[in-house]
């Protein structure tokens, strides 16, 4: 049992790989479902969420933190799904949104530009040049998004456990590699890993509940004990504490919840 994230560019056959891996291992295969969950739970149109995790932030976004808020919603929806285990997620930024979860097998699927162009031309009925422009723009947006929000390049291989190039290797070969790796001890869900995953999901839920208006709070959770770190002023702390108390009652699984002000936010905080 494991959690698998598959990162992919458009037309790189990553979706096909994800579906086949899920089918062979008997796992749930999710992508858009996460956005639908987030859209439903936080009453945000799906299209806004898609833009939040696809387009790089505009100058305005950097001031109103709109993207950070939407990402917290998506992360909360994703971790709730993933906490159930046996999941293959092939939506955007899975490897980043699940950073800190130890038993996630992070895979990237890449394909040759020539094959991607061919696929885009066939599907959209456009010329080679148009297809190339669209693919390059799409890749660029995804790179810019990750660099702007998380300061890392999604094309950096060190973010993944395996990168498979679909060219000489086929979709079926990639499925074999991933299924083999997923059964290894380090990716198997143990009781302790499951506990960590549930704590992580809980912290993400608390963050999502607070992020509007407290976008800069940090949240950690251990054995259901939630700590909220803030740099807010005294006046805002009262407001935050009131909100936190309400959240403690609303979100299931919280043992204890504390607000810490004026202390450094730990690196593993969400």
């Amino acid at each position, binding site marked *: 049992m494991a959690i698998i994230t598959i990162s992919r560019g458009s037309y790189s056959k990553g979706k096909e790989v994800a579906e086949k891996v899920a089918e062979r291992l008997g796992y749930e295969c999710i992508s858009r479902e996460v956005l639908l969950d987030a859209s439903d739970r936080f009453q945000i149109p799906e299209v806004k969420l898609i833009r939040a995790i696809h387009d790089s932030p505009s100058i305005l976004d950097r001031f109103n933190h709109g993207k950070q808020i939407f990402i917290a919603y998506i992360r909360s929806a994703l971790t709730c799904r993933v906490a159930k285990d046996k999941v293959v997620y092939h939506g955007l930024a899975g490897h980043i949104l699940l950073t800190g979860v130890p038993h996630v097998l992070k895979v990237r699927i890449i394909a040759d530009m020539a094959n991607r162009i061919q696929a885009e031309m066939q599907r959209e009925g456009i010329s080679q040049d148009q297809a190339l422009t669209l693919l390059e723009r799409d890749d660029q947006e995804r790179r810019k998004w990750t660099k702007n929000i998380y300061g890392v390049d999604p094309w950096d*291989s060190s973010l*993944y456990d395996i990168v498979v190039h679909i060219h000489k290797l086929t979709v079926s070969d990639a499925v074999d590699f991933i299924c083999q790796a997923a059964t*290894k001890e380090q990716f198997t869900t143990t009781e302790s890993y499951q506990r960590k995953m549930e704590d992580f999901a809980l912290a993400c839920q608390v963050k999502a509940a607070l992020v509007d208006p407290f976008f800069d709070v940090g949240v950690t959770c251990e054995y259901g004990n939630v700590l909220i770190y803030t740099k807010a002023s005294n006046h805002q702390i009262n407001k935050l504490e009131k909100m936190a108390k309400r959240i403690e009652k609303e979100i299931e699984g919280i043992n204890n919840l504390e607000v810490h002000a004026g202390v450094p936010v730990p690196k593993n905080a969400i």
Partner: protein
Amino acid sequence: MPIIIISSDSYKTGREIGEKTAKATGYDYVDREILGPVAEKSNVQEEKLIKALDEAPSFLGLSSKLRNKYLAYIQEATLGQLLEDNVVCHGLAAHLYVLGVSHALKVRVLSDPEELASQLSSEAGGSAEKVKKLLKRQDAQRKRWSLEAFDLDETDPSNYDMVINLSQIDPDEAVKTIADMTAYRKFQPMTYSVKCLRDKELASRVRMVLMERFSDVRVQADGSTIVVETKAIKREKQKRTEAIKELAGGIAGVGYVEVHVANDIFRQAAESSR
């Protein structure tokens, strides 16, 4: 049987995986040990050949002209070894010049950053922060080196069939995966892919000889036909073509030599302004 080319962000890690893969597959292992004979044959210090493989040209280090010359020696020797087949090759930058050869399985292995940091810290000393900066600088240098020497970014995963990160994956599991891949149909030598490798080997031999006199030559081979591209000023074109034909024509395996001399506009301008 396929040839396996291993690239890594750490020489030590790449060597470990390469040696284990060779053992698991029963292939020969080719690494920087071949540089000794290369140095002897070309009358260059072995350290300089290693420097050409590791460092980008700099004011105090190797010039780009010398670096390219040394890399041509290494390329010729490595391609000769790869022609033998059943080979695991590491540490000779083969992933950057064995292109278009379908039976070459290229794998990049990334070390566990923590292990790499502690290894560096024990070797060079310094705090974790200092080591991190050092690693970042090394990565940037390698990237620059590969782009300058072969016009390819060696950190780009699309230059490989697979990238395996050893942070979570055990080295023995990585070796098993690589060894299993050698049985795949796509990595079996075909008439065409073997010909591609032979052409590359011949081109590298010709280039090595020509580079002694003409450092800017580009050589391609198709069977026994050699196409050489170079630059010269107008009045030297004829002379250069003849010299290249004479030099290349004497190399074993070369049948016909075609030379394309482009106008060297910078030298031409310098000559006419005198």
